[in-house]
Structure formats: structure tokens, C-alpha cells
């Protein structure tokens, strides 16, 4: 049963991903990506990572994808569909990808399974508690640092999307005309 669920989610993930990178229509691609991300979220669930599952759904599907869709609608979707969707280097690209895939798969085949971990008593606490425990104890520093990261991201988003002040623009156009 778990197998079946796993394969379903895996198929969903990969199909969504494939569709994402092959669709002409940006909106379709974005929706496929949502599909894929949901698949990944499902896989998280099968691996008993409930907290991450929730985060995936909330953050990704809820926030990131909305952002994507917003941008897609901001830019001119129609004109984007007229042009050639794929780059001319596709033969080389596919060869490269195949090489990475094959070499990666071969290395995994040889290297797996990983050595068994030292036996540990299953924690009584639920997943979320465990995560919180580890996050705030062992990973306190990155957690704090992540705030910096987000600060930078917000700052960047604001800075990059902000239109330049009208006054400045005027001054500049005067300069250039003069």
C-alpha cells in the first residue's frame, strides 16, 4: 500500500516536473509545477516528515507559486507564447543530462544501500516537536541567520521592483537631453 502511494506521488512529482519544463504556456507550466510540488509534499508524507509536508504546501504552493503566477500575469503572456520555446542547444543539453543521470544512477547503484544507522529508540515526541527541538537547539544559529536571509530577500525584492522616483527620472532625462 505504501509502495503504491509512493509510486503515485513519485509519478505525480516527475510528471509535473516534466510538464513544467516542456509546456509552452507559462500558466500551464506553473500549474504543472504546483502538481509536482504537491507530489513532493506527498513524498514527504510517505517519509514521515509531516512538518515539512505542511511547510511545503504552505510555503511553496501557497506563497511561491502565487508569486510566480503574479509575475506571469504581470509580464505579457501572449507574446511569450509566440516564440520558440526551446533553446537551440538541446541536443547537447540532452546528452549532458543523460550523462549526469546515467553516471549518477550508476554511482548510486554501486553505493547503495547506505550503511545501517546505529539503532536509536524512536522518539516519543511527534514530528513537529522533534523538528522544533532540533531547530531551536542544534540549528539555532542558522535559524537566526535565516532571518538575515529573508531580510535580504525582502530588501532585494523591494529594491528591484521599486520604480525609480519620478523626480529622479525627470532630472535624468533633463540631463540626457542637455
Amino acid at each position, binding site marked *: 500500500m505504501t509502495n503504491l502511494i509512493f509510486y503515485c506521488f513519485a509519478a505525480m512529482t516527475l510528471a509535473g516536473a516534466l510538464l513544467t519544463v516542456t509546456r509552452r504556456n507559462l500558466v500551464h507550466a506553473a500549474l504543472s509545477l504546483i502538481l509536482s510540488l504537491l507530489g513532493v509534499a506527498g513524498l514527504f508524507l510517505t517519509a514521515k516528515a509531516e512538518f515539512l509536508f505542511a511547510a511545503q504546501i504552505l510555503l511553496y504552493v501557497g506563497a511561491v507559486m502565487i508569486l510566480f503566477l503574479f509575475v506571469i500575469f504581470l509580464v505579457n503572456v501572449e507574446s511569450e507564447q509566440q516564440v520558440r520555446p526551446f533553446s537551440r542547444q538541446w541536443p547537447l543539453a540532452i546528452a549532458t543530462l543523460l550523462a549526469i543521470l546515467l553516471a*549518477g544512477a*550508476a*554511482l*548510486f*547503484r*554501486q*553505493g*547503495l544501500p*547506505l*550503511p545501517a*544507522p546505529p539503532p536509536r529508540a524512536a522518539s516519543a515526541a511527534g514530528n513537529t516537536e522533534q523538528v522544533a527541538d532540533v531547530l531551536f*537547539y*542544534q*540549528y*539555532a*544559529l*542558522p535559524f537566526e*541567520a*535565516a532571518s*538575515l*536571509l529573508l*531580510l*535580504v*530577500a525582502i*530588501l*532585494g525584492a523591494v*529594491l*528591484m521592483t521599486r520604480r*525609480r522616483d519620478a523626480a*529622479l527620472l525627470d*532630472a*535624468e532625462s533633463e540631463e540626457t537631453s542637455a
Partner: protein
Amino acid sequence: MIPINDLFTILPALVLSIFACALLLMRLEEAGLNVGFALAGEALTALALWRQSSYAGLAGFLGSVILDPFGIFLNAACWLAAVFTILVCAHSLAHENEQTGDFLGLVLLAQAGMTLVVSGVEIVTVFVGLETAALSFYILTGFYRARPESNEAALKYFLLGALSTGLLLYGFSLLYGLTGSTRFAAIAARLEGRDPQDPVLLLALVTLLAGLFFKVAAAPFHMWAPDAYQGAPTPVSAFLATASKVASFALLLRLCAGPLAASRSAWEPLVVAAALLSLTIGNFAALTQQSVKRLLAYSSVAHGGYILLGLVAGNRTGFEGMILYLLIYSIMTAGAFLLLASFEKDDLGQFRGLLYRQPWVAVAMLVFLVSLAGLPPTAGFFPKYQIFLSLIQTRHYVYALIGALYVAVSLYYYFRIAREMILEPETPLADVPSPMGWRAAVGVASILTLALGINPQPALDWARGALR
């Protein structure tokens, strides 16, 4: 409650982020005030670093970061680059009608991220720090958002940077998966008993190296660098070419000398290939450039090649050479880029007749160029010397010879700039503006370059101490 000791270990990052936040919040209009404030922050950071240096070996946050001379040394290199950038940026930004406050905030945040990378010994910490710095750099690169070049540079840098982040993360995830820990020491300990040629380890290693080569702009992962350096605001180019590279090399060194040390036979050929390719591509592509920024960008790729050769040698001399190289590279490359910051355009022709117009500017540039070429009596000589020495010590004669030959090639393009400076201009060019901060940065950088060339002992001692 986090113990005060732990906070002490990240004191520079704390200081920097506090000052960054303050800068962002205060929104001072006066550029000079912003610069002064940022410099005050840097001064405090320097103080923090200096205080930290007497607590070598102190680990914080359960072994997430460590205070070791190595980290402090490279942090100092980043610090120098940041200070130079702060000194110079105001004038360039004013020229483009951009906010200094936001810019400086980002610079400080980037530096804060890098301090975590340099002194971090735990994957997640390092990664978050790296990403903080990287995001800041993307934004800084695209800071002149009305300029298409700046946009383009930022976007290319972002796309390839994100790709490299992905690869790096993939490698980190495998490394974690193999050992069940994210702390370098624990990883190294758990890998100890295992086959250093374990296939999954190899996969981790190759993706990690790919990601890191991206970050240090080693060929063939370097291609973002010339475009990014050229398109970015010049002070950012300086910062990017130096601090970012120093931090990434710090990580590379910590990995290669730590968890991956046992797998040397696997990664050595890759590093050799990257080093030689960097030397070749960097030097040859720089030969005929017309844009000085791009020329310096390619030259910085080539310098990356030399530093990697130190890793190839892999003995103490080699490591000393590498970090010494990083320090001195930061000074001279930052100096050269920052000197460029005052120029309206960056093509070679701008330098024509500089010696007659502004002799001291020309002399400073010359000092940087000579140092970049690695000729004594400038600072650039000794790190190259150390690297060659280490290669000879470890019997890598061929690499030493190749490196030496490329010194001659590099001479050609550095001297193209010098040559322009002494040509008489056909049409008189205006003097480049020389604001105070710029003068200070360029002056200090050139004097340091010269002084460390004549007496490299302090730097050498420091580097030697950093590896104890």
C-alpha cells in the same frame, strides 16, 4: 537562552547585521553619514575580529561556528575588501542617483553572511550564510536597475548562482545522508572508517566541487564572472571579485582539508583540471580584452587557477600560499577595480595618457598591475612564489612550469593597460574625479600592495599562524 559565549563567536556577524538594519531603517539622505556609519560598523567589526583572535579554538552553537585563526585571517581579507568598497561606493552611487543606505546595508549583510561561511563548520550554517551573501550580491550586482548591463549581469549571476546553490545543496544533502550529521567534524569522523572512494561520496564530492567552483569562478564554471563583474556597479565588482571569492575558498579549503581530505585522489584531478583551465582561459581570454573590467575579471579567473594549484600541492606551504594569496589578491584586485570606479567608462582608451594627467593615479594602477602580474617588489609576488614553491616541493614540476609560463602571458595584458597610460592621448581626456573615499581606498590599497611586497613577513607570519 543562548549563552554569551555563543554570541561572542558570531560577534562580527551580529555587529554587521545590527549596523545593516540600522542603515536600512534610518534611511539617511546624506551619503557621507551613511558611509561614516557603515565605517563605524566596520570598525566595530574589526574590533570584534581582533577580540576573537585571542580566543582561538572557541566553538559556538554546538560546534556550528569556530573561532580559529584561519577564519579570522580570511575574515580580515573580506573585511578589507568591504572597507574599500564602502569607501569608494558613495561617489559612484551618487553618480547614478542611487541610495547609499540600501547599498551599504546590503554590503554589510553580505559580509555578515560571509563571516558565517568563513568561520562556519556546519553545513546548514555555512549554507545559510553563503546564501545570504549570494542574495545580497545578486541585488548589489543589479543595483543600477535602470542600466541594462546591470540587470543582465544580475540576472546571469543569479541564474548561475542559483544553479550552483542547487548543486552545492545536492552535494551537501548526500554528505549528510552518508554520515547522518551536518557538522564537519562529525562528518569527517564518520567518514573515517569508510572507503574514501565510496560512490555516493564521489557523487557528493563532484556536485560539491561543481557548486564551489561556480562560487570561486573557476573554469569551466567561471562564465558568469566576466559578465557579472563587467555589468555590476564597479564597487560591487570589486567586492564580488574579492570577498565572495575569499569566502567560497574558505569553504572549499575547510571541506578539502576536512571531510574530503581522505578522498584526495578522487578530487585532485578535478581540481587540477579546474586550475589549469582557469589559468588557460583566464589568461588567454584577458589578452585581447578592450574592457578593463572584463580584463580584470578574466585575470581574477586566472588568479583562481593559481590558488587552486596551491590546493593541488596540498602541503602546508600550499595552504599558506593559498590564504596568503587570497589576502593579497583581495587587496590588489579590490584596488584595481576600485580605481576603475572613478572612470566613466571602462574601456582601455580611458587610461590613455593617464600618467600625464594624474600621475599618482597611474602609479597606483601600475602598482596593482605589477602586483597582479606577480612581479616583485609588490605583494603579488610572494603568494605566487609560495604556490610555486609548494608545487615544487610536492614534485608537481609541470604545474609549476605552466603557472610560471602563464605569468608571462598575463604580463602582456597587464602591460597593455600600463602601455595605454603612457601613450599620449589624441584628444585630451578629462581628469577622473578623485573623491576623498576613493583616494583613501586606492591609496591604502596601493601602499599595502607595495609594503607587503617589500616586507611580506607580517602577512606571511599571520598566514602561517592561521594554519597552525
